[in-house]
């Protein structure tokens, strides 16, 4: 156990985690930034936010992903970025879980918001997000 602790807190491992988690966030942000109107539709589908906040969230969230991803890749302010990455990933997981529990048949909006991917919010994505959450928490608490 102590060995695992040493490995995951080793600076090379943390650097690698920053590159992977940061890369995922940067990749995920681009489509949402360039098609904010389509992303706002998807945010609306999740039916979690009051109407007045939907557009603002759709504008802010992808840029947060981009800035967090870029700082994690570059290796600047990794704990702060890790904190934001943790908050973002946790919010994704809550959104997906509530959509599944309520039986909402909606597009995920994770990487592609054009409607071409056909990826729906599902428990599979929830499980995938657990890995992203673990990486984000590691960077927040140990970087």
């Amino acid at each position, binding site marked *: 156990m102590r060995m695992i602790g040493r490995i995951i807190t080793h600076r090379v491992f943390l650097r690698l985690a920053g590159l992977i988690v940061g890369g995922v966030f940067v990749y995920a942000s681009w489509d949402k*930034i*360039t*098609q*904010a*109107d*389509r*992303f*706002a*539709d998807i*945010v*609306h*589908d999740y039916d979690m936010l009051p*109407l*007045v906040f*939907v*557009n*603002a969230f*759709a*504008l*802010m969230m*992808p*840029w*947060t992903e*981009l*800035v*967090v991803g870029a*700082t994690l890749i570059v290796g600047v*302010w990794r*704990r*702060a*970025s890790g*904190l*934001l990455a943790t908050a973002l990933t946790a919010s994704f997981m809550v959104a997906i879980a509530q959509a599944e529990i309520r039986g909402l048949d909606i597009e995920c909006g994770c990487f592609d918001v*054009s*409607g*071409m991917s056909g990826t729906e919010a599902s428990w599979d994505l929830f499980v995938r997000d657990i890995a992203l959450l673990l990486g984000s928490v590691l960077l*927040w608490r140990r970087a």
Partner: protein
Amino acid sequence: MAGSLPDSKPNAQTPSSCPIVCGGARLLSWAALRVPHALRAAALLLVTLVAAAVYNAATPFGIPWGPSPDNRVGIPRVFESRLPQIDAAKALSLYEAGEALFVDSRDEDDYERDHIPGAVSAPMRRWAEIWPDIESEFPRDRLLVLYCYGAHCGLSTRQGKELLRQEYGKLVVLDYGWSAWTDHGHPTVEHPEGHPGEAEGEH
């Protein structure tokens, strides 16, 4: 000198020779060591706010920060005036005049069960997949009336945005969609077996 750092350089720039650059560098290094990461996270959020505002103002498909006056979200500013909503009475007058093509944005099953007479099926949830096949059914010189399920259904608005991107110019969305049309007792075509062509009847 007692207390001086062993690797300090006598020729290093002094605050008097670089008051801004060195002062800034010292401030940054101080901040990097002492400012809590939660505060840095807040600073990153501030950066994202500025970046989002600048990009959204500059891009042609920028959206307003709040809902439109008719409580719709996700509509680019350039489309706001080009995607008007009409009520069921106006839709009926267009239907009776035969001037418009009605477009059913609902799922295929719902269209097959019942729809507005003469409407074409264009299920928005399968838009990317079906558009190449149905594009020829959408005339550019005729008004298109888009409808979906009801009050909170954004499918028609999304379809309108897609058609505006394809440079269709004459579009309206039926407010409250199918539920408004049927609540007012306007004509429908029903297929009790769920298959057009079998037991079709207009009401």
